[in-house]
């Protein structure tokens, strides 16, 4: 049973306030569509209620009796959604129950879908959220027109050295130079302002992103960092007209054509409107102008006084927090133009709106669908989309976890002796960029997102190719480019389904392995989280320890972990996690193909996908995922929307996901199309911020 749509705390609060309203709506809706419900009742009665409601047996806290009596007000949208997902993905009925025929399953899915469509879910709320470190750095860079970066961030893992990333071209070059920012120390040395220290990296949510509003907290220690950071930017000896593109716009002494107070006011109105993402309120502007003029009167040179005001603005909550205004009704309301501009630019560019976007918002034109779509297209052609690829792809794939991997050097000597001289030449430094470059290619070339499951190309360095082919340690020419931290990646064709896409890359396979053996459950969990966006619920509280005896030799990983599936408390989830991991057993702990496991025992990769599609190999598993392309497209759309909105998705977001998938289906779910549809989706364009706390019932 899936818990993917667990209501957030905020959602639960709204449940209370809206309970009556929702109940009334459900009653009305179900009454109006009475024919939809009876179709599912016989199947539910025959296959589900025996374990979920009859005679007090309520497995997994799922009680389906209310569904049988649809028409009563007891139907809960969240429950419906969970049941629908479980039935559609073939998790339910479980393997030990009488099977559900394909036709009956399809009918049940359709019936549940129909019922869900008329069942009002609690509105989801996109919360106020503090900028992440990555967003802060980009926003300041763009606001001040800085040359280079504000600070060097390991968040952008794949560093574009040859200028390969050109989305307007629609084509990734066959050969490109890239650097691994996390694993090459030299990669962090970039043009930046000295004396500016970034604040600590933001935590990311489990199976989520660092944009999660509820987890982006502020504390005194972090506030100190923000204050110090905003001060240090302008105190840096390098901050001057050569490094700050906006110097003339804000900081250069006025030429005398207007009085100083007028110049201060005009310039600050522009600066604050950009920093705060909306035309500045006269009161707010007045305070900043007064502060600046005070400093000038106290003897500060004009540039210094203006920089002090700009520094304060960068520590203001109006800058630091992405926020939308209050709403008045019981349902979500459209964002205003400036709120929409900010949401769009932080989604695609991880930064504040540019002048064109701001101009459209000022003119009140952005909320119109075609204009919005046109702006999304324009922005997706811009090199700033590298920021989206950096921020989203790395977190979606979780490739940072590869940093700490330490394969046993006795078993995998060529992993750490990959290039001898430095950390940058551990195999993992090369591996990590492969799935990221595949992702960037899918974006730049607007390819179907199913290319992330399987693509007929990939990007590898010559060293990595040789490593994966087990062709011995690569011997680079002394002093040749291979000895530097700049890595040369080449686009290589992929034939067959063993390679291609992201799942079977050496990066993911190594990252989900231990020092000496693979970790099938970790691999399976990665697949259900990343590819299916269906994270398992927490393991039960009373896990019996696996007996030490079963760890002995002579058993494959699969045989050892079979014990998980025998304990009733574990079986449900492991039945849907483990098969993906076992299917990947043909990849060794450093991601290379193998026919036998580390003990020399034969590998059995077979399993059943979605409860109904048997597969005998990883190739067949991938083919099965490709055949169910809408399942992956939906999961991927969910990841995009979570990242964009900074929150968990709820049942209320399901229609939007359905539409994104449906609208992009004709062209094969291409990545740019999906991004555009996310931007056009209802959750992206609305807000729901009631003025009062919900009243406890």
């Amino acid at each position: 049973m899936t818990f993917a749509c667990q209501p957030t705390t905020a959602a639960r609060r709204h449940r209370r306030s809206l309970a009556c309203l929702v109940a009334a709506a459900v009653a009305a809706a179900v009454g109006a569509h009475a024919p939809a419900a009876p179709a599912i009742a016989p199947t539910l009665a025959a296959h589900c209620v025996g374990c979920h409601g009859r005679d007090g047996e309520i497995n997994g806290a799922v009680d389906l009796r209310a569904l049988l009596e649809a028409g009563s007000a007891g139907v809960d949208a969240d429950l419906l959604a969970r049941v629908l997902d479980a039935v559609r993905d073939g998790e339910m009925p479980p393997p030990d129950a009488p099977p559900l025929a394909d036709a009956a399953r399809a009918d049940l899915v359709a019936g549940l879908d129909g019922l869900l469509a008329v069942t009002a879910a609690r509105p989801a709320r996109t919360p106020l959220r503090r900028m992440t470190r990555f967003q802060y750095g980009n926003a300041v860079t763009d606001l001040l027109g800085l040359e280079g970066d504000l600070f060097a961030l390991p968040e952008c893992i794949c560093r574009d050295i040859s200028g390969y990333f050109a989305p307007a071209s629609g084509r990734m070059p066959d050969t490109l130079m890239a650097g691994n920012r996390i694993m090459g120390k030299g990669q962090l040395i970039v043009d930046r302002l000295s004396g500016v220290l970034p604040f600590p990296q933001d935590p990311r949510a489990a199976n989520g992103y660092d944009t999660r509003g509820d987890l982006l907290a502020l504390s005194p220690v972090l506030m100190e960092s923000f204050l110090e950071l905003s001060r240090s930017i302008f105190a840096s000896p390098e901050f001057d007209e050569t490094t700050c593109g906006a110097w003339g716009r804000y900081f250069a002494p006025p030429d005398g054509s207007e009085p100083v107070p007028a110049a201060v006011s005009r310039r600050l109105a522009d600066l604050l409107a950009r920093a705060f993402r909306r035309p500045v309120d006269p009161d707010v502007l007045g305070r900043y102008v007064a502060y600046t003029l005070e400093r000038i009167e106290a003897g500060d040179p004009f540039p210094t006084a203006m920089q002090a005001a700009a520094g304060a603005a960068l520590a203001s909550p109006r800058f630091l927090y992405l926020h939308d205004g209050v709403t008045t009704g019981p349902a979500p309301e459209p964002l205003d133009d400036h709120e929409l501009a900010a949401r769009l630019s932080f989604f695609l560019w991880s930064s504040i709106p540019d002048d064109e976007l701001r101009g459209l918002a000022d003119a009140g034109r952005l909320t119109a669908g075609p204009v919005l779509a046109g702006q999304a297209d324009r922005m997706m052609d811009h090199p700033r989309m590298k920021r989206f690829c950096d921020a989203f792809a790395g977190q979606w794939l979780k490739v940072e976890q590869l940093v700490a991997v330490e394969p046993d050097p006795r078993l995998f000597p060529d992993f750490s002796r990959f290039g001898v001289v430095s950390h940058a030449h551990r195999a993992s430094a090369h591996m990590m960029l492969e799935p990221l470059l595949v992702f960037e290619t899918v974006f730049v070339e607007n390819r179907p997102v199913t290319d992330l499951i399987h693509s007929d190309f990939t990007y590898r360095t010559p060293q990595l190719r040789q490593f994966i082919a087990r062709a011995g340690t690569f011997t680079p020419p002394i002093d040749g480019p291979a000895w530097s931290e700049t890595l040369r990646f080449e686009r290589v064709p992929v034939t067959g389904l063993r390679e291609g896409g992201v799942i079977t890359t050496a990066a993911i396979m190594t990252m989900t392995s231990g020092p000496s053996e693979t970790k099938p459950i970790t691999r399976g969990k990665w697949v259900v989280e990343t590819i299916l966006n269906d994270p398992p619920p927490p393991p039960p509280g009373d896990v019996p320890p696996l007996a030490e005896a079963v760890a002995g030799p002579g058993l494959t990983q699969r045989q050892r972990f079979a014990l998980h599936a025998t304990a009733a408390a574990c079986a449900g989830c492991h039945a849907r996690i483990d098969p993906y991991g076992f299917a990947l057993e043909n990849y060794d702990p450093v991601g290379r193909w193998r026919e036998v496991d580390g003990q020399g025992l034969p590998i059995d990769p077979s399993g059943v996908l979605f409860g109904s599609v048997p597969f005998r190999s990883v190739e067949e598993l991938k083919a099965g995922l490709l055949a169910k392309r809408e399942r992956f497209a939906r999961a991927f759309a969910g990841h995009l929307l979570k990242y964009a909105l900074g929150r968990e998705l709820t049942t209320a977001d399901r229609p939007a996901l359905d539409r994104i998938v449906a609208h992009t289906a004709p062209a094969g779910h291409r990545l740019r199309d999906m991004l555009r549809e996310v931007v056009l989706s209802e959750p992206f364009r609305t807000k729901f911020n009631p003025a009062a706390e919900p009243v406890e019932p």
Partner: protein
Amino acid sequence: MPARTTPSPALSRRRFLRGAAGTALALPCLESLEAAGTAAPPVRVAFYYVPTGVLLDEFFPGRATDPARMRSSPHAHLASRTLEPLEPVADKVTLVTGLDRIWRNTSDQHEQCGSCFLSSIDPRLPGGSRMPQGRTLDHVIAAAVGGDTPFRTLEFSGNTHRDHKESIHYDTISWYGPDHAAPSMRDPQLAYRRLFAGAATAPTARVTDLVLADARSLALELGAADRRKLGEYLESIRSIEVQMDRLAALRGELERMRLPEPAAAHLPRGEHLRLMGDLLVAALQSGLTNVATFMAAPERWDTGFLFEGISGTPLSHHLLSHVGWSEELRQIDRFYMAAFAALLEKMDAIREADGSTLLDNTILTYGSGLSNGAAHDVSDLPIVVAGRGGGRIASGRQIRCPPGTPLANLWLAQAAAVGLDLDSFADGTGVLPGVLVS
């Protein structure tokens, strides 16, 4: 601008600000402390957290059945191999056995271990989060014993991982409230600069005025939930203002300590814990804070740590914990206990103004949110209370609690020890008997 509505009276601006600043900062310090002036050292409260539980029969005296795993001691409450490092301060530590914590079936066990260790809110209480998590004890009692220290609380961590494998709930034991983490300092050099070389960069009052005005006007434009979240901003700014003033007043004291600045370096595990421990002790000694937490390592994270002296290759504490007894796991338990003992010895060597030691005036609790890590067991937690809390804490013994006693009963006792008589805390049912000097 979006349509505005009048804020409800319940969340008026005034109350909003009072909530942010008032409750957190304006509670008077204890009369007893104030009356005593500088002569009576303040009581400090600190927590040392170890992830993933321990090997029970190596930890609890009398639990082992294999003679090879037993250790005798003149101090019955320390008669186990894991507790051996505490022998030098045996009469200043108390072993507390039989305490339980709540696990709520809404998220991973490890996710709740550290993040709910110091709160353990009854899930049946209203207003809870998806976990039994609330404002943690350190923040609750900081209001009482925080006094006029520059930092209300300080948070230290021994986590040096860079792979961002787990979310913040696995990595933080100190929380302002549900899902509102108090981030910890984990780089000794940066921590040093913040604590002992800070204040040079204090923001001017004008800047904080300016941004506070922005916060107040912004709050009027927001919905209720967002307004509450923005409270974090106001509280942070207020804390910093107070902190800067008080740091300036303490400057002479800090300079007299002559603590060397740690070098920026990748340190061996034990060395890193020792340096962070030094900073913790110095902060408590110098009056930078009276309340602190130290999370020795994060929960679950299966990335290995290189424990010098145990193994030449990195060991994953979490993965080892699920295999059962191993010599490595035993030594990891001991490693963290030895680091704890070193803290205690250091504190016991520091003389305070009245001749007592820093340890005499501190309540420093060692604990983990799991007992048997292999089974994710949240009952019979390993807990050691060190220090005498200014003479209010009984020590040198074992306290055996009846099965099912909430860990929060110990927290109620510790709150009482610093003069904070809480009607209730978390799922506690009453002050744990035997903790306080009767």
